[in-house]
């Protein structure tokens, strides 16, 4: 019963994150051609309020989210239908990786229970390492990253870290089910 509940929980989380990714892809496609101007701004601020406010529901919500979440630099964002995506390529990669990571977390298995936390931490570090190296190197002007690299490092970070979190919740559920049986 508890494993069925948890499968439903995993499926719900996966569907929600997938729906969010689809919304982000659909937003520039569903809006009229060239209706989104350059959105470049800074994260944590609403830089393009008047433009976004004029968009129809639900696309305005998606672009509001992107405006707060991301810098939305136009040279670092996908463009389709003449419209820029609501978030940059790296952030899109993170969101794209999340539903895949949630699904893949079922396949994460370790040989011994003692090593689980260590392996999960190593996996989490592996997830963050490429995005941090790429981001820090770029911030200090050591190199200029490319859009495919941004997408790959973002997907790795989003996918692996969501898989690690789901595996953590999985282990907790398994323990709770075992202690309920005792």
């Amino acid at each position, binding site marked *: 019963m508890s494993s069925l509940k948890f499968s439903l929980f995993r499926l719900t989380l996966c569907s929600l994150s997938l729906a969010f990714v689809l919304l982000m892809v659909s937003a520039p496609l569903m809006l009229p051609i060239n209706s989104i101007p350059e959105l470049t701004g800074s994260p944590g601020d609403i830089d393009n309020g008047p433009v976004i406010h004029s968009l129809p529901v639900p696309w305005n919500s998606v672009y509001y989210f992107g405006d707060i979440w991301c810098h939305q630099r136009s040279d670092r964002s996908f463009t389709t239908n003449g419209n820029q995506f609501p978030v940059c390529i790296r952030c899109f990669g993170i969101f794209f990786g999340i539903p895949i990571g949630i699904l893949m977390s079922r396949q994460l298995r370790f040989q011994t229970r003692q090593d689980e936390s260590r392996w999960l931490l190593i996996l989490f570090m592996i997830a963050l390492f490429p995005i941090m190296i790429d981001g820090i190197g770029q911030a200090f002007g050591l190199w200029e990253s490319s859009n495919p690299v941004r997408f790959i490092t973002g997907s790795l970070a989003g996918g692996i870290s969501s898989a690690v979190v789901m595996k953590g919740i999985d*282990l907790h559920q398994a323990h709770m089910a075992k202690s309920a049986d005792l």
Partner: protein
Amino acid sequence: MTGDSTGAFIVSLIGGILMLISGLFVAFLGSICGASFSACGASGAGTTIMIISFLGLISSILVLIGSFFIKKGDSDSLRKGSILVLIFGVLGLVFGAWGTLPLMIIGSILALVGGYMGYTLKPTP
């Protein structure tokens, strides 16, 4: 009495690490901003900005400490660690929402989930 606290530990630790990344960034920016205010003669405002910007960093460190308490797994450490993670997860969430810091908000939510998991964990003999 010990419980298998791996799940709660991992989730709260990841939350703490995400909060720490955001907290370090905000503290760095806050110190520059605060120092500039102080240099312009508004030392009171400069100090306030510096203190506020360090709140996220302090919360994240306390969440990390709490997660290591959870890892110990005995009922006393589990309770103490979970309460620490929950309290500073809420503080981080308020701080993140106030400053619109997405990474801090996500880290705090994960810390709250991890803290709840640790709190509800039933230690097994």
